């Protein structure tokens, strides 16, 4: 029995960020009490996922008895709310993911978060911040460093900021709602940095590894959440993952599937099939 759109229905999830459009897949056979919740990467495309893979994955997992929910983040596709022009790894969409957790809880389903890139980081952060709420994690190509933060805070020359002090620029910022919001985000980021304590780095891997990522990972390990990491052999993020020794830190409940090609972007049908097969096999082995 294969799930199709006949087994699906749309739903708006109430979130603090806006009403999020989701598509629910009901298992055509016996339900297993779990809900696969898909969190996609950054970008402007809908929740059908990169190369429609979230549709394929949802329907395949439904065949195993999972309910599945794929949804668009706030401000994207049919979802309400205002989206961010720049998505940052220090501002993950945990509020959106929590709306999906609430949806699952209302139906007595235990959520397994399936995230891709930015979505993987959001899934990990959500599992860390909502203890006991997540039954499992699939993290496809999670970046282990906060590149948006690095790019935006460290690489811009001082003259760039000096130019921004001109009265004409200040007036332009104050007149634009979007730019006022961006200024607010930057201000909050700087306050966050100023408030941080200097911590010892020993045991936390290379300097470039996100402390936030490690803290979330540690919280997930403490909860004993089964976790599957998925990478492609050609993914640069896989090199980072290996360099940083993440799998050792993730403990015995974690495993990694490495498939041919690049999982980031999924620009090959063979890689998509291999990644979906790996997720299917892990789900079947973990909740047989």
């Amino acid at each position, binding site marked *: 029995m294969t799930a199709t*759109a006949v087994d699906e*229905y749309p*739903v708006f999830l109430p979130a603090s960020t806006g009403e999020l459009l989701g598509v629910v897949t009901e298992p055509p056979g016996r339900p297993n009490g779990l809900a696969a919740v898909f969190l996609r990467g950054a970008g*402007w495309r*809908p929740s*059908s996922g990169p*190369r*429609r893979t979230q*549709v394929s994955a949802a329907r395949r997992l439904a065949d195993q008895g999972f309910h599945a929910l794929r949804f668009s983040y706030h401000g994207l596709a049919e979802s309400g709310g205002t989206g961010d022009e720049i998505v940052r790894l220090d501002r993950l969409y945990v509020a959106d993911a929590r709306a999906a957790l609430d949806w699952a809880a209302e139906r007595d389903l235990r959520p397994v978060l399936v995230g891709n890139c930015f979505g993987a980081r959001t899934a990990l952060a959500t599992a860390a911040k909502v203890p006991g709420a997540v039954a499992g994690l699939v993290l496809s190509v999670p970046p282990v460093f906060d590149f948006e933060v690095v790019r935006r805070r460290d690489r811009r020359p001082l003259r760039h900021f000096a130019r921004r002090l001109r009265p004409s620029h200040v007036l332009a910022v104050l007149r634009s709602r979007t730019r006022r919001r961006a200024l607010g985000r930057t201000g909050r980021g700087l306050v966050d940095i100023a408030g941080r304590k200097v911590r010892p780095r020993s045991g936390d891997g290379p300097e470039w590894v996100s402390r936030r990522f490690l803290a979330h990972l540690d919280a997930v390990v403490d909860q004993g959440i089964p976790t599957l990491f998925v990478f492609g052999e*050609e993914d640069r993020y896989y090199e980072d993952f290996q360099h940083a020794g993440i799998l050792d830190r993730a403990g015995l409940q974690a495993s990694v599937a490495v498939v041919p090609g690049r999982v980031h972007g999924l620009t090959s049908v063979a890689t998509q099939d291999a990644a979906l097969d790996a997720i299917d096999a892990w789900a079947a082995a973990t909740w047989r």
Partner: protein
Amino acid sequence: MARRIDSNLGVVEEVEFFGAPERLFGCRHLPADGAGRDLGLVICSPVLCDFGANYRREVALARGLAAAGVPVLRYHPRGCGHSDGARVDLTLDTLVADVATALAHAEERLGVTRLAVLATRLSSLAAAAALRDRPGVPLALWEPVTKPRSYFRAGLRARAVHRLSSTGPPEEPEAELARQGYLDLLGIPVGRALYETAAERTLAAELGDAPRPVLLVQFEDTAAVRSEYQAVVDARPDVTARLCPCDESWWFIPDRAAPGDEAVAATREWILAR
């Protein structure tokens, strides 16, 4: 059906699956005050890589028109997005059939007496074909594909560029089709029937002779209409060409906001004038 009211935008959005036996995912964008005009719009999403690239523009146009009183139906063709159907089974004929299904659904559910259609890229051929027996229906085309062969040639070129940075030997399209039954076009399987869409199914041929107002929008930061579009303009007195200064790469989708506010604004203005 899922429904939400966005009082900030002044629209109601209703999302549902429709059609049978295979179902299409659709979203209706309706004026929040219910006081719609007698004209509605059906938006035929493009397919393959273009599907995601155009998504934000389509939603923006639909919401803007609904707020101005024009109800809109957007849908995902079979083999795309949330709709039924395997990606590899998508053909020009399935696209044409989906346009017809969407038009019938819009007539039933939008509460209007007249429809207009917007189609983008390859879906332009399908929309033109589906409207052949509906003369007078306004048709807006964003970056329409004029010749299917040229479209796939561009896709194969994009793939060749992409493969420069990855492993694996190059393979001729024919050999690949024979080996696995589809062409892997940047992660989307293109079946033989779509890839080998007859060369004579050009935009000019699919538009036929039926008179209708046509808006042709070229996404390019240039002062001149491309020759392939100029030929369409020259062949029909009812075609208006608009240039919108937003270069869209189409085959490669960067993670940034899709440009094209000018295209959305020009199309909105054109539809409102119908």
